[in-house]
């Protein structure tokens, strides 16, 4: 004789938590760790999920907006001012500077490696006196909010390995990305929206992107980034099919819930609670996502601030504005990807175009967060996967040049939650080729970012194939100079 199921009339899930407790405790993002626990997913089988007990200490930042500039923006034409290169323009890169550093197959066989000074004008900005070129008039205005890291370096020299390394801490495939680690570690602050949202600038050329960059790797797939897209379905499959509206969908879901409740009575299987919850959350998302992606409630002044593109969904500017809205609603990790910074040739024209699309909105986002009092606990990061060479790839002329990939040094900036604003950290040599002081390895950068989020990078681990993995592998040290 089967016993009546005790959970049917009791709390919503067999762990004995009320729904409120349940949501509070697990942070019911789109992933929702608790769901897979309820259904006996494989995540539950890993007994030593170390994500409990997080954050490890009080976080400086509660959320991250990562403005990823894919392709590798030229630090030498934006932030890392090197007058010596202008002086030596056209001269061969000295071996003493190159030091045998490997080059990509694209310029390795070039007959000469002529150094190329930037044709853009540099000036110092803000009280901090940060150097920036005239490509970044808007970013220049928020100079004092920025911590500009000029000495970041990486290990990979081609896009795929480099971007994979920067996003996952490893050049090998199959590792979780930064956002997934955060999602796994910190959960969500909004039960109706994903904890980790990804947006791509539309209509771009340049190096392709890959879903694994926001994939969860060996972490359960519920921790992967959810892509928000312009148009009807901001989230894939969000809209009801033709002929179904919200009312009829509710009607159907009510009956579906009845089916599930009845099934629970019959089978005594409490995991059906999760099934019910799954559909309720989907239904709520159908309302909450359009609410956040509908920009019609933004005043004109906001659009003016982010620039005219911001009225055109899917542009970088519109995505920046969307990022702010998502941040306001508690999304923990918001990642933008903007492609086409890979300027092997025709760099001046190319970089002008990319800056034209991104400069104003990037700066507006920081300023907007600040005016809303959110910058203090929002960490904004701007940067690509590597830098570019100080020598020209292809022909160097008075007005044109290209730059190849350069892993030895590149520039990123951070703003907001806990960062050492109004500073430039680290330096490259006068040739802009090697790190001269305070080099920051990608692992160090990751360790520091996690620290700002209240996570000890050595203690956020996940056991996979018998080994405890970390975002920083077995490396990474905090960079105090980046933190306030």
């Amino acid at each position, binding site marked *: 004789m089967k016993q009546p199921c005790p959970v049917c009339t009791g709390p919503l899930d067999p762990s004995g938590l009320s729904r409120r407790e349940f949501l509070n405790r697990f942070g019911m993002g789109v992933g929702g760790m608790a769901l897979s626990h309820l259904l006996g997913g494989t995540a539950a089988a890993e007994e030593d999920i170390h994500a409990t007990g997080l954050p490890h200490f009080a976080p400086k930042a509660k959320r991250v907006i990562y403005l990823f500039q894919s392709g590798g923006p030229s630090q030498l034409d934006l932030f890392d001012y090197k007058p010596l290169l202008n002086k030596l323009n056209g001269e061969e890169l000295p071996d003493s500077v190159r030091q045998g550093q490997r080059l990509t197959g694209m310029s390795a066989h070039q007959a000469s490696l002529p150094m190329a000074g930037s044709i853009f004008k540099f000036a110092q900005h803000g009280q901090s006196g940060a150097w920036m070129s005239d490509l970044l008039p808007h970013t220049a205005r928020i100079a004092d909010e920025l911590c500009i890291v000029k000495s970041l370096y990486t290990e990979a020299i081609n896009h*795929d390995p480099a971007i994979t390394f920067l996003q996952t801490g490893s050049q090998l495939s199959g590792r979780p990305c930064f956002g997934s680690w955060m999602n796994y570690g910190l959960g969500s602050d909004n039960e109706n929206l994903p904890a980790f949202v990804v947006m791509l600038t539309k209509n771009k050329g340049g190096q392709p992107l890959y879903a694994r960059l926001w994939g969860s790797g060996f972490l359960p797939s519920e921790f992967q980034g959810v892509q928000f897209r312009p148009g009807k379905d901001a989230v894939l*499959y969000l809209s009801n099919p033709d002929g179904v509206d919200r009312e009829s969908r509710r009607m159907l879901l009510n009956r579906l819930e009845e*089916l599930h409740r009845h099934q629970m009575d019959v089978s005594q299987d409490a995991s059906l609670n999760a099934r019910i919850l*799954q*559909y309720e959350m989907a239904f709520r998302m159908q309302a909450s996502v359009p609410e956040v992606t509908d920009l019609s409630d933004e005043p004109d002044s906001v659009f003016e601030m982010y620039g005219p593109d911001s009225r055109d969904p899917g542009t970088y500017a519109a995505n920046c504005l969307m990022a702010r809205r998502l941040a306001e609603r508690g999304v923990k990790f918001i990642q933008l990807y903007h492609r086409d910074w890979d300027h092997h040739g025709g760099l001046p024209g190319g970089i002008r175009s990319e800056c034209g699309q991104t400069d104003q909105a990037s700066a507006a986002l920081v300023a907007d967060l600040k005016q809303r009092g959110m910058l203090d606990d929002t960490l904004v990061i701007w940067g690509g996967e590597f830098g570019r060479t100080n020598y020209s790839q292809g022909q160097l002329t008075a007005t044109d040049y290209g730059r190849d990939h350069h892993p030895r040094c590149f520039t990123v900036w951070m703003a907001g939650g806990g960062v050492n604003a109004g500073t430039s950290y680290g330096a490259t040599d006068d040739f802009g080729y090697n790190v001269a002081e305070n080099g920051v390895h990608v692992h160090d950068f990751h360790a520091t970012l996690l620290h700002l989020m209240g996570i000890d990078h050595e203690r956020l681990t996940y056991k996979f194939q018998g080994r405890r993995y970390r975002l920083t592998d077995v490396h990474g040290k905090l960079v105090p100079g980046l933190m306030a």
Partner: protein
Amino acid sequence: MRHRFHGYLLISALTALPWHSVQAEPLGFNRDVQPILSDKCFACHGPDSASRKAGLRLDQPEAAMAAGVLSPGNPADSEVVHRIRTDDSGDRMPPPESNLALSAEEADILEQWIAEGAVYEPHWSFIPLKSVSVPVGLTPKDGNPIDAFVLAELSESGFAPAPEADRETLIRRLSLDLRGLPPTLEEIDAFLADTEPGAYLRVVDAFLADPSCAEHLAAGWLDVARYADTFGYQNDVESDLWPWRDWLIRAFDANMPYDEFITEQLAGDLLENPTQDQRLATAFNRLHRQTNEGGSINEEFRVAYVGDRTETFATAFLGLTLGCARCHDHKFDPISQREYYSLTAFFDDIDESGLYSHFTHTAPSPSMLLYDDGQERQHEILQWRIGKREGKVAEAAADAETRFAAFISEGSPIPEAQPANAWSFETMTDGKTPDSADEKADVSSVLGAGLTDGPHGKALALTGDDGAACRQAGDVERSDAFSLALWLKTPAQVPHLVVAHRTVAETDAASRGWELLLEDGKPTFGLNHFWPGNALRVQTKEPIPAETWVHVAATYDGSSTAAGVRIFVNGEAADTVVLRDHLFKTIKYEGGGGAQLLIGHRFRDVGFKGGMVDEFRFYHESLSAIDVRSLATGGDAAALWANASDAERREHYLFHADNAYAEARASLAEARTEESAFAETVRHIMVMRDMDAPREAYVLTRGQYDQRAETVEPGTPDAILPFGDSLPRNRLGLAEWLLDPQNPLTARVAVNRYWQQLFGRGLVETQEDFGLQGRPPSHPELLDFLAKRFMDSGWDVKGLLRFIVASATYRQDSDCEPALREHDPQNVLLARGPSYRLSAEQIRDQALAASGLLVPKIGGPSVKPYQPPGLWKEASQVVYNPDSGEGLYRRSMYTFIKRTVPPPAMLTFDAPNREVCTVRRERTTTPLQALVLLNDPQYVEAARVLAEKSFDATQGDEQALIERVFRLLTGRHPDARQREILAAAYDEHEQWYAAAPEAASAYLDNGEAPRVSEAPAPELAAAAAVAQAIMNFDAFQVKP
């Protein structure tokens, strides 16, 4: 009571189950102790010598005892116990900075183990299989042994097995497990009605014999094989590997024994006289990702591919996390870094490039022609004809003796070869230099290459980045005879210089075309389809001097063989070596591809920096030695004739003056052209093919491709099974090693995978890790029994499946008391039937099958079903064009997988992205899955087509309709309450749609499939809503 719960279940068992006690009985080392030692101690005191602390290793008993840290039987005297018990953080083990800690239970177990004598046992999975006796007394004598093993464990747990599930459940479970598809209503009804004994096994046998079973089993292997339709990495071009998937289906359909299945995939090419299918099977080793990102370093990626092949081998067949030993000795398992690289040595002897071609679309080498029916015979005939006509040419030569004598005695004028192109570089006007042989040829200076003084007037001076180019010149196929000649002066004998070629690029086009290089100063001439494995290359033995004008010529006879190439230096045939001789595909580009004849440089390659070139000639024929000498010496033919050898004269005569010989050659050329054109019509696919000389393999320090340490021979990890002396040290030997009855892992890993496929969880939960950090088996004797039986059965895969599904264990009801579910949520005890959410493929295929939309075609190229528009485009420059018709409704295993943008709905249901070998999928539950089932056109369409068809089949009878739709989607009859709920759903939707006829119509227009029923739209829409409700019901999504 023995405790057999592990992992997190152990924790809940310890706290929740009063009947459990750790100290109650002696510990088993493998079961209880090893997991703790491995997880908490071995990182610093294990197999990895580099990270070992205090010189102490605890993984080997001798070493641990010798170190004096264990006092068997005397925990109080044991340093280990002191260290794990102390409060002194300086002494405490594991140390706080390791972020590891022992739980109280774990410390108790270690102490108890020492008290019991600190007895080590070899790791369970490394012990060869022995016969296991079936527990007696618990099951009937003729019962299935599986049940005896399961009951033996279960009897100690206090839980009883569940009764057999009802027949509707059983046939649905069987059908989904064996075919990946739901049973049809006819199949269900037949089974329900079959009261004869053996009904169940009749269903099993029918399902196993169904071709859809082969598809389903193949689908399961696609994850392991990391099969995808694109190369992965950023550009992610299509890789055309689906014929391998067809092989896989054929293999399962024939119930190929697992030993052959392994052998053919690993080493089918090395079998004696391998069949086309056996060679095709080896594509398994080429399914890894590959890059073509410009500027990538060839060796870096080649090493990555070899690593992937090796690690996939280890995960798939051995259940080992071999990758951990890539950069250092394995931290937990007895596998050294050296052994890792020894294993890679089996997989690195193929003639491959680290990059596939950006500018051409072809199978990266090594590759094979994959004949369709009749094509092989056709090709053989063409090749036979070439051989025949080569004979005719030889005959013509022999027959020509009298004519040759007459030619000489008549003192006929000595003919000369006429160049098709002749560039003398005397003038350069507006970047153009004339072609004195072809006025129409447009020869341009590239990037301002200029003129200098040469051996004959002016010459072309090169910087490495510039050159001379002509699109019309040198456009030849591998079946064409051609020659080129030029004067050149090289500044130095450097490793690699590009002199002249007609290719678009080096790595970016796999050097397709022909090329003349200087390698270490040695003239090197070759023709390539895909360098290095589909190419021929010949090189002089001696370098030419630097800083001196040298005349170099290369002649080629159109034979696609290295024997057809001659290289001349200063007019004399040079001694040469053959570097490659395996060219069997075109050297031309699709649609021209922007190829041109180029002197002096090549895209992203080392140009002829500081070099000079003069008097370039191109001929559409193979020159004679006298022709070349004439070019090199400037001497007139008559004078050279006088001084030439008899053989040279004869050759010159035949090449230029004998009509019969010319005819024979023309006829041979025609046959060669035909063969070469035919080869392009044959499918072409990557496979394994070892080079004649094995590549040297090295230990790579820290796994870095360019940090070569000592060399290694092909070999296997000793701790598993030493590699037999009698085995060939190649992949075939490796397959034999794998299948050696003494190999402790192969059969266990295979059996466990099939168990996992049927129960959702392996007897060893960690299918990917049978090493020390993996979970010990829940039923070790059962695992070994099955493994032994599997081997003894001749590795009979379907036999294994049949044996397992025949067990009462498999046939149990999956409903159970909450107490059992709570104590054993993972069903480790097997006290109930296996029930869990279906795979991404099963869910979609089920919707297609139930609606009748499924197109049951087997095999063929991948298809592109519905996908939200723009997904590919926004991440790359490629557009996804969904199929129309059939391609929308094929089984999901045929859905095109682009690795960088995998099919989103599949990914949402936990399908992997196929970047790496995956042997276990997660099963998550997320709201995104609900959105897919509710809104993806694939499901909406399936629901409405199902509704329409069911409506017509039941003449609109509401109850009958509900019954039918429910059964089609869940395989069972609805109960009264379910009928009631669904009837209410139907009624309210009918009302709703009656009030909104446009909505009804719009709803029924979802999907490409035409409307089926002519019934009133509101009723059909209501029926479709009911179908959608059931398609989102748990019973649709889970195996019962």
